[in-house]
């Protein structure tokens, strides 16, 4: 279904040919495994940094009940 977004003057009326690219990739052809790699790496980085902050900075510096 076409929305006004894709039909108004000054806007594209259909899929825009990639201006500097060599091919057009449809939804069915597109496998975003690069996105999986990038977001997966980011998620691992978040876990490592969070663990670093919790165990190294927080747990070793914060006041303890035992202390």
């Amino acid at each position, binding site marked *: 279904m076409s929305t006004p977004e894709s039909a108004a003057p000054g806007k594209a009326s259909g899929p825009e040919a*990639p201006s500097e690219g060599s091919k057009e990739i449809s939804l069915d052809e597109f496998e975003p495994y690069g996105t999986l790699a990038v977001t997966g790496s980011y998620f691992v980085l978040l876990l490592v940094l969070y663990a670093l902050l919790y165990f190294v900075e927080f747990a070793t510096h914060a006041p303890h009940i035992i202390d």
Partner: protein
Amino acid sequence: MTFVNHYPKAARLVKANFIVAFVALAIGGFFGLIQALHRTDVFRGFVSSVEYYDVLTGHGVLLALVFTTFFITGLYQWGVTRTMEREPENTTFSWSWFVMMVVGTVMTATAILAGLVPGSGMSAAVLYTFYPPLQGHPLFYIGLALLVVGSWMAGGDWFWSYRKWRANNPDARIPLQTYMVIFTWLMWYICSLGVALEVVVLLIPWSLGIVQKIDPLLPRTLFWFFGHAVVYFWLLPAYFVWYSILPKLSGGRLFSDPLTRVVFIFFLLLSTPIGYHHQYADPGISLVYKMWALIMTLVILLPSLMTAFTVISSMEHGARQRGGSGYFAWMGALPWGRPAFVGCALAGIMFAAGGFSGMINASLNIDMLVHNTAWIPGHFHLTVGTATALTFMAITYWLLPQLTGKELKFKGLALAQPYTWFIGMTLMSNALHRQGLAGVPRRVSEPEYAGISYDVPFGTMAEMNWQVAIGGITLFVALIFFLVVVGGTFWAGAPATNVDDTIPPPLSGPEHSPKVLDNLKLWVGVAVALVLIAYSLPLAEMVMDGLFSPGAFPAPV
């Protein structure tokens, strides 16, 4: 033929909003340079350590409230006009909200800047977080109220256009850009009610001397009712750019329109009920509500992670259409020589880093490690200071030819600007984060104390101070680059012959999503219910203690 030819009235309005935004950016950015040099003791000759707080207030208010609000109203006016295909419904009304916002800004800025003029008898060094016990001149609060009311009217203007469009298109899905505008403003109406009540009911009577005493907790809570959601008021317009324009700049198409709508619904629902996470250290608020805010805050990470997926996959689509391949190598195929793309992409990378420090802030226990330290400005200079500000600057490079009909001037400088900003912010923000871990307080003009040495986890204090100062200078240089490009384009840009203003439709369009996503009444109802769950009992308890009586615990000493 481009936007300025199709919609000349809207183009004038957008340009006027952008000009005010950029003037605020210039002044606020210069104040930032002063702060970076002053705090680090590299140079303390601009202002005294008392006047520092006027500068700090100016930096926060002019950038976080004035620059953002005017840029957002300009950007959203552009988005609504082009997707509704309508000029503003009533030009007088449109200019009236703009004038009201300008008058409010001038009043507020006057109150702040007067603090730097000896003998003016006026001051508003209340910082960006303008709650008691710090008190500003009434002009400061009245101006802010006008700015907020003007922004409400701007939203009314767009809803007016939407209703007219809906009458002609009863069964059509809301165009995506207008959808994002509507959901941002619904969220803004809900959250800004808190700051409006704080300013109009409590702070203005108090600053005018009509009442002598004030309960500190109630206005503080009302401020944070607004104070975290305003973060999304800054961020959602950046998402608007990342979702609707960045895929095109990458050479591809938006991966999913339905996912975009779901993300904006999440932000409408969850932005406001999490304000307590700024009050983790406040007595007088039950731990139960702080835990509720913690859970909701972690849930609101979800739409940001969904955004990471959608935006990165849209960029990957562009890169692969441009011939990119591999798990990571595809990023090399992206257009790293286009200023608008580079600014948005680097802003996104910075936002990912800010996401991590935000998770620390959100954690009820670890937050105590960094609460009110330099870590916090380190965090929000990655989010509003880069994810939002750099995106706004970058997309200006793409929008200006559409708004002026002129070619972008100084394209080399425009390309250097986002890289320069990125380097400056990397230096400044990493050092601020590490200073925060060492316990260096935020806000203060001279964070050195006799007999106290900071326990620095990595590096040295001197090294971190120099990184903050050099980072601040680098950021200011990037700001100058931006202003030169914008000014040059406005006044000396050559007539544009072929303006790049098309946006291709998404890979997965709105037809792949249920219509319930467009049900505004339903989502507003759920959002209001969540706010009532989070705030009704605590606010009722504070109000019953007396609006102005400092009898409510805790009272200012």
